């Protein structure tokens, strides 16, 4: 029993000492030979002898330890539904004393599942900490090798589903998992005999050889759309005693108006174009048409979407929630 007790104390002591060093990578690289070399000199004094060095040698074993830290403020990234390439940033560092290969993976939980999530990596030394296309994409299962003390930035890049609602959250958990045989199922202080650098033993200093952190996407209301509006006259045509007169604003002339709305960013919710006609023109029935994004030709505005209101002398057309693009209506009116 006593033997078991001391063994228990020992393993706890090992775990404690490993935990105490978990914030810094530790010293001598695994596989390094520590060579102690002693010599003896002896007499009698008239015949001194110096021995050759006698050595005691062992190899430093490997500690498997890794840290992952979420870098985004408050471990949160605000997004809008439909956002493309929303980025979460992490860092990974090898706190062990051997070159170690880690598999990288991410797991979503929450109100929605981010789409097409890819993992990118960039060495901290020489990197800029910002996802800008200069990174390498990680292939699942391929493993990222880190020397002792080496650090990488990791970027999880996802699309946010267009169907996500304001207030929804989704959390990505990012894991770096040691690929040393058995490490992923070993508790702190566990030993993987012969699995370390150069055949040394590997001692697992982080549960399951895995470091994790998580960041949440929070869906915010889309920013107000930026919309510009432009009203113009397309043509003025008058029929003077059977002759077409173009470009003269004379009574009886038909003026073709265009109102063009451009959404340059965001989504214009319930975009409605309302055109108050001048007092001294008369709307020409059945001339109200619309065209979206400048393609597909002008079509008659469906009555459900709007039309001319003789009471207000206004034309209104509702385009609904309108993404970036152009929305145009045209109508004819005659000069009284």
């Amino acid at each position, binding site marked *: 029993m006593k033997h078991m007790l001391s063994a228990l104390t020992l393993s706890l002591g090992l775990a404690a000492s490993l935990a105490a060093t978990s914030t810094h990578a530790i010293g*001598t690289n695994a596989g390094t030979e520590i060579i102690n070399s002693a*010599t003896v000199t002896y007499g*009698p004094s008239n015949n001194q002898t110096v021995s050759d060095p*006698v050595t005691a040698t062992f190899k430093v074993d490997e500690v498997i330890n890794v840290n992952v830290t979420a870098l985004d403020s408050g471990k949160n990234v605000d997004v809008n539904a439909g956002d493309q390439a929303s980025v979460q940033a992490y860092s990974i560092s090898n706190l062990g004393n051997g070159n170690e290969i880690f598999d990288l993976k991410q797991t979503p939980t929450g109100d929605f599942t981010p789409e097409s999530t890819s993992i990118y990596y960039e060495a901290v030394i020489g990197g800029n900490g910002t996802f800008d296309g200069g990174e390498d994409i990680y292939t699942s299962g391929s493993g990222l090798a880190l020397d002792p003390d080496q650090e990488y930035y990791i970027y999880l890049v996802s699309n946010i589903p267009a169907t996500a609602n304001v207030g929804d959250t989704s959390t990505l958990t990012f894991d770096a998992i040691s690929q040393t045989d058995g490490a992923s199922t070993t508790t702190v202080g566990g030993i993987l005999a012969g699995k370390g650098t150069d055949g040394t033993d590997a001692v697992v200093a982080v549960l399951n050889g895995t470091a994790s952190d998580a960041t949440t996407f929070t869906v915010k209301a889309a920013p107000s759309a930026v919309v510009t509006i432009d009203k113009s006259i397309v043509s003025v045509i008058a029929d003077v005693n059977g002759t077409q007169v173009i470009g003269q604003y004379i009574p009886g002339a038909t003026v073709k108006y265009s109102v063009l709305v451009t959404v340059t960013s965001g989504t214009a919710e319930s975009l409605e174009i309302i055109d108050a006609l001048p007092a001294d023109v008369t709307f020409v029935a059945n001339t109200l048409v619309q065209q979206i994004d400048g393609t597909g030709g002008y079509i008659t505005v469906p009555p459900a979407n709007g039309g001319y209101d003789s009471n207000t002398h206004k034309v209104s057309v509702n385009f609904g929630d309108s993404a970036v693009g152009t929305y145009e209506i045209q109508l004819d009116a005659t000069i009284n």
Partner: protein
Amino acid sequence: MKTLIKSLTAIALLISSINAWSEVELKNEAFKVVTITSENGAKSEQWQTPDKMLPGDKVGYQISFNNTGKESATDIVIANPIPDNTVYVAGSAKGLNTDIAFSTDGGKTYAQPSKLFIEKNGERVQATAADYTNVRWTLNKPLAVGADSSVQYAVLIK
């Protein structure tokens, strides 16, 4: 360790051909120094067979020597550089009937800890255990024929 002893024997044979009077054999062993907490909470150190040697671990070295010659050996001096990638543990060097001295200059000069100084930022300061480069034991008694003894010290793996 076995091969060490073999090579030691080879060395000893070589030595015996030169020196017929006395013959001192050396043995150098490394141990993992583990702190054991007993059931009543008392802590003690135990030297164990080296296993899972990690940065931060304490390593004990025992250098044993015996006189396999036909005459007593005098003026015995054991010299031992502190291994690379390790740091001497203050106060750990021991040896019965020995004077223990340390070097901070790779073994050119030796002195007692209180008399060891180094230059740091242009100032002469007391050397600390981390500055030691070598440890040396000088036996102040001859070693009789057939007698054996040992010295010890400890380091931390960087």
